[in-house]
């Protein structure tokens, strides 16, 4: 039974990028309102006009439907199909009111676009009249308007994203100083193991956004994650993580005010741990933290005084082209 579930979608080939765009379009269809995509500069006819006028209007402006209006109030709608019916009978001199459909489907200008899509699906009608909050006709919406509106919004959003990413990755080139650095600060609560990793997660994301090599971001992420977990497990008070990002190096400082490490040399030995059973249940406390950190960074300094606190400083050097030179061993 489970297999069937998994394989039901196999026939549809959906690539990563397509899947991403689908969800984005779906999101947009909830965000955008009918008034954002509708045609607002519309032409209207009156019930007493002749069908010949309608034909001329359609031909001249290449449109396929117009609302029929009396004093700004919606009376009906007349479409290309109505015109064809009229032409078949050779009846161009008759009035609009005898061919229009007066049963017009309307939608409010402040409705989300997704509502229009649902209505198109259900009604099989090509266009809806759009009413404003006072119930007056304010526009017309067709499937084409929806598609165009969504594409336009997607395009704008894509450009905004590109600009944001560009700005982040060029931060260091655009700002000129003798030495530029970006400092990120995070505070951790003692023993809040469930939240452990939030700071590390944000640090890794920031590095990737700034254009760091993924391998480098991974090394920083793993090192700072182990350190963050240590901070949460062992510190008796608020812990402090400070990451200084510079084009040539990343310096991560992890500080707490106690209890401090009794024997630093012992703490560095793989397998040595003072962690509680609760911590071990979370998959940590196997005495691999500090050795793991050391393996991921280029330089590790640990300064700890029992009763006072621990200061851990980690450095990772960014070498151009050889950013991958120090792989994790």
């Amino acid at each position, binding site marked *: 039974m*489970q*297999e069937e*579930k*998994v*394989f039901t*979608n*196999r026939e549809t080939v*959906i*690539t*990563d990028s397509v*899947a991403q765009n689908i*969800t984005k379009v779906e999101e947009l269809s909830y965000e955008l309102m009918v008034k954002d995509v509708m045609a607002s500069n519309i032409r209207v006819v009156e019930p007493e006009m002749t069908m010949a006028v309608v034909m001329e209007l359609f031909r001249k402006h290449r449109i396929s439907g117009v609302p029929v209006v009396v004093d700004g109030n919606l009376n009906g709608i007349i479409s290309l199909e109505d015109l064809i019916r009229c032409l078949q009978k050779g009846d161009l001199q008759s009035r609009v009111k005898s061919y229009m459909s007066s049963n017009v489907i309307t939608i409010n200008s402040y409705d989300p676009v997704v509502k229009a899509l649902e209505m198109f699906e259900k009604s099989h009608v090509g266009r809806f009249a759009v009413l404003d909050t006072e119930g007056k006709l304010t526009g017309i919406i067709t499937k084409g308007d929806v598609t165009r509106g969504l594409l336009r919004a997607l395009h704008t959003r894509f450009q905004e994203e590109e600009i944001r990413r560009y700005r982040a990755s060029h931060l260091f080139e655009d700002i000129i100083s003798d030495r530029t650095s970006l400092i990120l600060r995070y505070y951790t609560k003692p023993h809040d*193991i*469930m939240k*452990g*990793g939030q700071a*590390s*997660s944000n640090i*890794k994301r920031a590095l990737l956004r700034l254009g760091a090599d*993924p391998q480098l971001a*991974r090394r920083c*992420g*793993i090192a700072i*994650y*182990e350190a963050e*977990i240590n901070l949460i497990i062992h510190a008796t008070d608020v812990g402090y993580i400070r990451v200084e990002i510079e084009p040539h190096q990343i310096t991560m400082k992890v500080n707490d005010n106690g209890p401090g490490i009794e024997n630093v040399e012992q703490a560095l030995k793989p397998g040595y741990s003072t962690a509680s059973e609760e911590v071990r249940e*979370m*998959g*940590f406390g*196997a005495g*691999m*933290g500090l*050795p*793991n950190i050391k*393996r991921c960074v280029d330089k590790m300094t640990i300064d700890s005084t029992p009763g006072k606190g621990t200061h851990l400083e980690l450095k990772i050097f960014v070498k151009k082209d050889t950013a991958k030179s120090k792989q*994790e061993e």
Partner: protein
Amino acid sequence: MILREIIHLASGKMLTDVEDLDIEVKGGYTADLMSDVLASIQPDAILLTGLCNPQVVRTAQMADIRAVIFAGGKQPTSDAIDLANEEKLPLISSPYGLYELSGRLFQSGLPSLKKI
């Protein structure tokens, strides 16, 4: 190997709302100790584990893990599932125990992604 195929081999059930099951996974790694994972997993692996808390998701994120299978029909905590949905990490539950699950995937050609 494609994630979809791995889920099939594991008789797995999706626990998150990830739509894209055509992610390429380079290999597998089995552990209950997150420090072991952080120490020696290579990027783009699938993690097989019996540990069921949010730290599994964080570890996956730090170590560039593509998906996680919980063995023995275990269900991760709802915090873990929420976090995974946020981070778009597929979580799968398999009825097989860790040993059998690892064996099945390895035998079907999914290599070990432990660093040597």
